[in-house]
């Protein structure tokens, strides 16, 4: 099902290359998260899709039709701004109805639709409220209602939860997901928070320095980070420098924690990720690690545990219901290299 296609988008601001050749697609009904650190170009991409910025190069297509000559107000997209950009001189109803008014909807239907979307975002009866007196969470909902009201073909959300507190954020992520699912809304969700991205999106596009690093489902990206950047951005910090050598046709990596076998076509210096989820306590695995527990901190369901192996510090999360050595005690770990190791060209 075709929806949005962007192809090789490039954009510079003066000498700064904000976007350097980005392509991806969003199928109809799909929610795609653009995930990346601030300044990676994700907001610029939204502005380009919306038509607020012109790309230096590349195309934005909807249902295979080029949008280059369609002005921003005729694209039929919705954009929810980072700090909401609610019109301070209008009440909630007028804010929400703005897009409908622009579409010249009859007054009766307009009122119905406003009530409907306010109901949807959990603010029934807020029509006459002054937007300047609303709380952050309420403003966020009004902004969402405003961008949903005109049935946008594509809804873009630019870090919509960035300014809210954690608890509110966690609740709103769930609600937002429900709303997007219920309305079968095609959406792009921009965030720097992997948890938000994974929770909301069908597919995640990880960006760095104006480029796409990886795209796929949240699970696939988390399991198989395509680059060292993605691994590090997702908080996978067990990265080791190593050197690939071959013995009898079998590649092995020489690292600070020892020699490990590896399936790789790379040669020479590499960066190795030891995925913490595939490392477990005990001796059940073809590779063994012996180390010392340097630090462990209780995080609810898990212990975040820092282990020193041959002078290298590694970090693992262990279920808190299993017996774990105390700080300063030796620890025995095991893993299966095919499952636990990812090998990247050295940085």
């Amino acid at each position: 099902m075709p929806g949005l296609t962007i192809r090789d988008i490039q954009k510079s601001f003066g000498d700064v290359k904000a976007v350097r050749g980005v392509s991806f697609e969003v199928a109809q009904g799909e929610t795609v998260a653009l995930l990346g650190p601030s300044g990676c170009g994700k907001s610029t991409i939204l502005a380009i899709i919306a038509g607020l910025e012109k790309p230096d190069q590349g195309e934005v297509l909807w249902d295979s039709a080029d949008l280059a000559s369609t002005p921003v107000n005729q694209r039929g997209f919705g954009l929810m701004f980072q700090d909401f950009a609610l019109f301070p001189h209008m009440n909630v109803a007028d804010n929400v109805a703005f897009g409908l008014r622009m579409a010249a909807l009859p007054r009766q239907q307009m009122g119905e639709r406003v009530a409907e979307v306010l109901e949807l975002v959990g603010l029934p009866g807020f029509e006459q409220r002054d937007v300047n007196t609303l709380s952050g969470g309420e403003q966020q909902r009004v902004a969402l209602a405003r961008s949903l009201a005109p049935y946008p073909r594509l809804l873009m959300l630019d870090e919509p939860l960035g300014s809210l507190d954690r608890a509110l954020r966690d609740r709103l992520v769930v609600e937002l997901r429900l709303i997007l699912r219920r309305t079968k809304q095609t959406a792009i969700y921009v965030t720097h928070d992997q948890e938000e991205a994974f929770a909301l999106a069908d597919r995640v596009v990880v960006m760095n320095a104006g480029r796409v690093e990886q795209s796929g489902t949240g699970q696939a990206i988390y399991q198989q980070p395509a680059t060292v950047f993605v691994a590090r951005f997702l908080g996978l910090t067990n990265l080791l420098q190593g050197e690939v050598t071959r013995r009898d046709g079998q590649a092995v990596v020489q690292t600070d924690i020892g020699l490990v076998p590896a399936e790789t076509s790379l040669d020479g210096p590499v960066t190795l990720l030891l995925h913490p989820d595939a490392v477990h306590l005990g001796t059940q695995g073809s590779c063994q690690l012996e180390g010392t527990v340097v630090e462990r901190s209780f995080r609810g369901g898990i212990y975040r545990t820092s282990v020193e192996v041959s002078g290298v510090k590694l970090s693992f999360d262990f279920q808190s219901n299993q017996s774990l050595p105390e700080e300063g005690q030796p620890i025995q770990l095991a893993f299966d290299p095919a499952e636990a190791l990812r090998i990247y060209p050295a940085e």
Partner: protein
Amino acid sequence: MNAISHRSRSALLWLPAALFLALFYFYPLGSILQASFARGQGGLLAPLGEAFGSPAIRGVVWFTFWQATLSTLLTLAFGLPGAYLLARYRFPGKSLLQALSTIPFVLPTLVVAAAFNAMLGPRGWVNLGLMELFDLAQPPVQFTYSLTAILLAHVFYNTAIVLRLVGDFWSHLDPRLSQAAQVLGASRGQTLRRITLPLIMPAIASAALLVFIFNFTSFGVILVLGGPRFATLEVEIYYQTVGLFNLPLAATLAMLQLGCTLCLTVAYTYLLRRVSRPLSLRPGAITQKRLVSWRERLFAAVYITLLLSLLVTPLVALAARSFTRLEAERGQLTQVERGFTLDFYKELGVNRRESLFYVSPATAIAVSLGYASATVLLALLLGLPASWALARHAASPISRAFDPLLMLPLGTSAVTLGLGFILALSRPPLDLRASPLLIPLAHTLVAFPFVVRSLAPALRSIRPRLGQAAAVMGAAPLQVARYIDLPLIGRAMLVAAIFAFTISLGEFGATALIARPEYPTIPLVIYRFLSQPGALNYGQALALSTILMLITAAGMLVIERFRIADVGEF
């Protein structure tokens, strides 16, 4: 917080402005009204009856409103696109353009009249050129003594107000609000009508009110460019005072003028409270972009061309005329040699008539700059606390009462003010005749409303959250002011300072009455030259006007640079 109550803090903030207005506005005004009515026969009602009984006076009142409304609408129509251009775009030469656009605002009315004359008058460049070209005996363009001349001069004068006040406010308006509207399907026109205009309305209203009051009390332009056919209240007051010495009638007209200004201001204050909203201001650096599309460039090119031809052509005509000899000096029998000359500038240093009152232009320049600096200081010192009170204690009854009062000096004719100073401040208990502060005080009176109108909107738009954040981190109210509010309103302070400085440099009406002859300001010296006959004096007046123009331009540029280098926005 509780030690000083909200209300007494607001009263404290108003105190300097209140004292100042009481001593240097209400006291002189009271004196002149007292003097005027004391001389009149039949008490208070006689002059009122005289005023409204006369069709001539009714005509004057009608014309005053009519021309002020028309001029204000024209100024807004011309200024608003420029405010948009300056607010939303960066382009090379922008600060130069801004500086240029402010120059007319500070020029003495007589100089402006001379400039328009030098361009469009019977012996101006246009008419001379057309006569030469088509071999005409009479100048074909009738410009002086027409309503067109008055309107054009008013637009020339006041466009800077719209550019500055509206442009500044607009440049800090979050562009995402209109982007949001466009994403929701609003066209450019709809966005402008439904989002941008309502949001910048406070600034437009501010600018429109100032422009209207200026046009309403217009004096020199009407007198010189309008000629005997046109008279505003201000001109009529002048005629009645100086010409006919009918002080009771003059005082009545002055009161009428004041009453109108007060009504306007009250209506404006009420309106402003309804349309003003907490906006999150953005630094101009973020909201401004470069001219990219051909449409933007065409708009910029057309507007800048129009602006330059309105603002610069008369000034260039003036400057060129000051270097050109066209007529014979009196007593010169030989055929005049037309062409380039530096004589008018050389003559500035020569005391040809051995006048006792001779003052070198250098002295006049120094005197003017001194007065202007003192005015800036005084106006900011008085204006800051008052603006603070207006912005932060807007709801307090004291602020509500004071807000319209601030604009009163603007609506008071310069003639009345000057006369009031002479009557009230040259005798005990407050004898300031010998004080060098007398003129800066009068100038501050005129500049004060501008300072407040520039500062208050900026202060009003600072989110209270910021001050609260600072207070939570341990900042005392004064520290909040010092570290949060002052840096945030740096730009507005600068605008206010520019206004005070330029108003002082250009003020003529009141200064003419109260300046000591040995310390005249530049406009006074220009006026002396203009009021003496002959091409040489006319040339010298134009030469000195050109010098004043250059000083102002230099000042503007220095301030613009200073802003970028030091104050910084936000």
